[in-house]
């Protein structure tokens, strides 16, 4: 499997080009709409309320992003159930889970150096999906362009995206299975741009320095090359290895390898680490539209995560082998 981290110059050139085009006239092709959506998500300040639905579960959240001096600060608060929080400042994401008194802090310094993680890698997308513009619709009081990504094979799900016709911001997104059923849906009911985004909304409601919080930190550093000790025997059509990270966990000092595969919009994470406890069992689990598959082999456990069919995770996970040393 080829390790591609050389997409940067092409991606950057493509993005600049598409943005200058976007400024003149509404784009006519779905790929340009997707690039504009990525740009909008990273450059715009906005504040809004959205709902997330998966199966019978539905939750409403408020979200605010303020971009100043090239640094994005974002905060999400779930308004139903326990008041969970996700705060992102630059490359640090902090998730607060009040029910279990846990804070997960994730530092990912390499995020920016992997633009292949962004769906503007249109070539990769078109290998796996048919892209088409599917009319206009009104979402959260705004005119939106509908973009459909129909999978070319059963290794991935379909996507239906509603993008603000003016700003490009993703207003609604639906993940669709092979039978055409919705697996999950995000949808804004209200969005306000620019100065209307309230900086007060960025403040955490929790005092994370209080002693009762359990803090889990994880820091990702770039391996710069495919992991030397592991081979991936099984490939899945359309999925490329786009990143290889080493994760250093603060507590217990456990070290894991995190390899990322993507088809341009869906991602599969493969975590490889020594087994945490004896008798560690494998298996599978579904959390919303995200599936988790774990396999234990020798003294290592391989955990595969993604918003893709279980068979895709299993195929990638079962192909992981330690190189003979």
């Amino acid at each position, binding site marked *: 499997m080829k390790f591609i981290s050389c997409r940067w110059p092409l991606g950057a050139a493509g993005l600049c080009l598409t943005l200058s085009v976007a400024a003149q006239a509404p784009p006519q092709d779905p790929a340009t709409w997707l690039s504009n959506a990525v740009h909008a*998500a990273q450059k715009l300040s906005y504040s809004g309320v959205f709902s*997330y639905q998966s199966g019978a579960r539905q939750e409403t959240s408020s979200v605010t992003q303020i971009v100043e001096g090239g640094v994005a600060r974002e905060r999400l608060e779930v308004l139903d159930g326990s008041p969970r929080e996700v705060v992102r400042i630059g490359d640090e994401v902090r998730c607060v889970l009040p029910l279990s008194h846990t804070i*997960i802090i994730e530092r990912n310094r390499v995020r920016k150096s992997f633009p292949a993680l962004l769906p503007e890698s249109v070539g990769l997308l078109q290998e796996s999906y048919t892209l088409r513009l599917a009319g206009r619709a009104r979402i959260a009081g705004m005119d939106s362009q509908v973009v459909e990504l129909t999978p070319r094979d059963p290794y991935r799900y379909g996507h239906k995206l509603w993008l603000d016709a003016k700003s490009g911001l993703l207003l609604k997104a639906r993940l669709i299975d092979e039978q055409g059923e919705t697996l999950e849906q995000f949808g804004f009911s209200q969005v306000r741009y620019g100065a209307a985004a309230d900086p007060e909304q960025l403040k955490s409601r929790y005092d994370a320095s209080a002693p009762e919080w359990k803090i889990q930190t994880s820091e990702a550093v770039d391996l710069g090359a495919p992991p030397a000790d592991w081979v991936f025997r099984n490939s899945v059509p359309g999925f490329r290895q786009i*990143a290889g990270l080493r994760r250093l966990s603060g507590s217990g000092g456990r070290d894991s390898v995190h390899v*990322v595969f993507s088809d341009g919009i869906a991602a599969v994470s493969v975590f490889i680490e020594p087994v945490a406890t004896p008798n560690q069992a494998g298996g599978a689990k579904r959390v919303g539209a995200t599936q988790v598959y774990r396999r234990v082999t020798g003294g290592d456990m391989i955990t595969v995560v993604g918003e893709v069919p279980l068979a895709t995770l299993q195929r990638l996970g079962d192909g992981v082998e330690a190189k003979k040393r």
Partner: protein
Amino acid sequence: MDEEVSALVDSALDDARAQHVAQVLGRDERLRQSWTMYHVIGECMRREPAAPKFDIAARVMQQLDTEPTVLAPQAAARKPRHPLVLPAMAAMLGICAIGWVALSLQGGLDTGPGSVTQTAQYPDGRSGLRTANISTLDAPVEGYLVAHQGVSPRTGMQGVAPYVRSVMDVDTLPAVAAR
């Protein structure tokens, strides 16, 4: 949890408990099957024909499709000689349903030594792809979900919103039978 699902079918739970059980039902395919079965059983016992909205035949067929093929001899079902009247049909359906519930509560057939269930293949209900029989993972995964969202292209397109997938409230009830 099955008792609570049964109680929910019988409207014997208070509002808060009912809401919780309904949420768990939303996440748990096996419990949803129990929910359907309890309804069918209830209707059989009340001598009502099975409500067509549950489409029991389709569900049973779907379940058969997703269950591993068990290579064990079974007695052929005896066919009724006479046209069935509705109550008798309902009663028969009830027997089928109870049998099947018992089966699914055990988490599939235990076929003993040399069991084929570990290697049997069944189609992934969502994708039509075949996956091997996999047990339920009973380990916390929040840390992985958060790390995964950080590298997903959707996060580049949608900001922190996809992290709602990683911070779902953990079910505080005892875990249902891992299957």
